């Protein structure tokens, strides 16, 4: 058993009597089958596991558990989501107990599958700096650096920004070297028409399952989502790229200035559509305009919830 997992178990066991549930991760038959674990009794702690393959942002469950005493195991990036939820008063600080764990990087499972060239995966093992994939043809090792999630390359902090308890036995990120070209980089290099065609092609694949929305920790409208509203009728049900792109625009604008780029939308997408790029673009613009990054400071107000009479970076646009 890895030391940090043991320490984590000890911390949770101590706090568990005070809590209704603790959110953590567990592994299934192989590590690709990583899943959330809801700990309510000490027996559940045996199933707890954490490593680079446990990628889900557990903070997405918090708003629906508001009003209960919840513990949550949190990496650096997920703590930004928690801060953002606290800022918007979607959760209460005194109801949650945060078990911080330093992150060594999270694996993009889609990249692992791609590396296996479509072969059926027998098992996957994440080592210190490599991921070994066992297929019918044998074992293949991939450098961790090549299969990390995009967000890990620009990680602002591997330790959580807020925490109540902290696992100390873990250090050293897998991240070394340059980030690979992101979808946003590719889009930036395109002409507008090519970008439009890119989205047409991408949205053509969308099956409108709304997994992106359901996985998003900041999508909290639940049954009032405009995608399903008949009055006003924002998106119709036809199966064409226009309506699907409209939905993505809705999602991007509703999370503008709030999105912490956890990447759950893109990770949850069964069709592998790179929808995070839209949110990254908006965040980049917001950083430039308002010098603001979501989920960094609990006392801040998201920029689109407020205004200044004199905006420093918005130059008044004249008629011409």
């Amino acid at each position: 058993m890895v030391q940090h997992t043991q320490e984590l178990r000890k911390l949770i066991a101590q706090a568990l009597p005070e809590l209704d549930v603790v959110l953590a991760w567990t592994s299934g038959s192989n590590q690709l089958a990583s899943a959330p674990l809801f700990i309510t009794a000490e027996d559940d702690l045996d199933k707890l596991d954490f490593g680079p393959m446990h990628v889900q942002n557990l903070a997405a469950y918090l708003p629906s558990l508001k009003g209960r005493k919840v513990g949550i195991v949190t990496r650096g990036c997920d703590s930004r989501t928690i801060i953002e939820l606290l800022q918007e008063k979607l959760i209460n600080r005194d109801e949650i107990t945060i078990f911080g764990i330093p992150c060594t990087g999270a694996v993009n499972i889609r990249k692992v599958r791609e590396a296996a060239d479509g072969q059926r995966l027998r098992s996957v093992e994440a080592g210190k700096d490599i991921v070994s994939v066992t297929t019918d043809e044998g074992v293949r090792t991939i450098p961790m650096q090549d299969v990390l999630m995009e967000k890990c390359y620009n990680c602002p902090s591997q330790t959580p920004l807020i925490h109540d308890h902290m696992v100390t036995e873990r250090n050293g990120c897998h991240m070394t070297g340059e980030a690979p070209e992101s979808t946003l980089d590719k889009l930036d290099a395109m002409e507008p028409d090519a970008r439009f065609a890119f989205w047409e092609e991408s949205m053509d694949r969308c099956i409108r399952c709304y997994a992106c929305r359901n996985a998003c920790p900041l999508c909290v409208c639940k049954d009032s989502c405009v995608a399903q509203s008949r009055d006003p009728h924002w998106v119709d049900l036809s199966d064409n790229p226009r309506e699907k792109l409209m939905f993505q625009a809705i999602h991007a604008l509703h999370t503008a200035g709030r999105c912490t780029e956890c990447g759950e939308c893109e990770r949850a997408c069964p069709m592998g559509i790179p929808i995070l790029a839209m949110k990254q673009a908006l965040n980049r613009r917001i950083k430039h305009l308002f010098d603001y990054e979501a989920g960094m400071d609990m006392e801040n107000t998201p920029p689109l919830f407020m205004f200044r009479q004199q905006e420093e970076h918005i130059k008044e646009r004249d008629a011409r």
Partner: protein
Amino acid sequence: MPVLEGKELRIVGFLCNWCSYGGADTAGVGRFAQPTDLRIIKLPCTGRVNPLFVVRAFLNGADGVLVSGCHPGDCHYTAGNFYARRRLEVLRELLDVMGIQPERFHYTWVSASEGQKWKQVVSDFTARIHELGPAASFSNCPAVTVETGMKAAI
């Protein structure tokens, strides 16, 4: 009188009831000649402009979208245009990343007395859209009409 007879493009204008709609009215009363590509939608305030109005307009086939309201500080509801200003600036980036040239979208402030300025805004914006030509649209995607919109709503 259409400036470009028979070559109109679809431009949607979201105008604040208190200033720019009045400004457009002033321009009309003053009989200032303007291009006729613009279809005006009157709103109580630019603060009412959901950036998604603009996205929806483009996806439904608009070639340009203009938002116009009261000058900052002159809002009938005190702060509507301040909020609008932030949202619309952010929207510009979304249009860009979606592949809709941000030049097709413009927001400006015109007061009820500025008929002359309104004429200038409309003429310049229309000229700009004509320079850009019709906006890109999805192939294999039936256009949104009143009928299809109604059917979808049922």
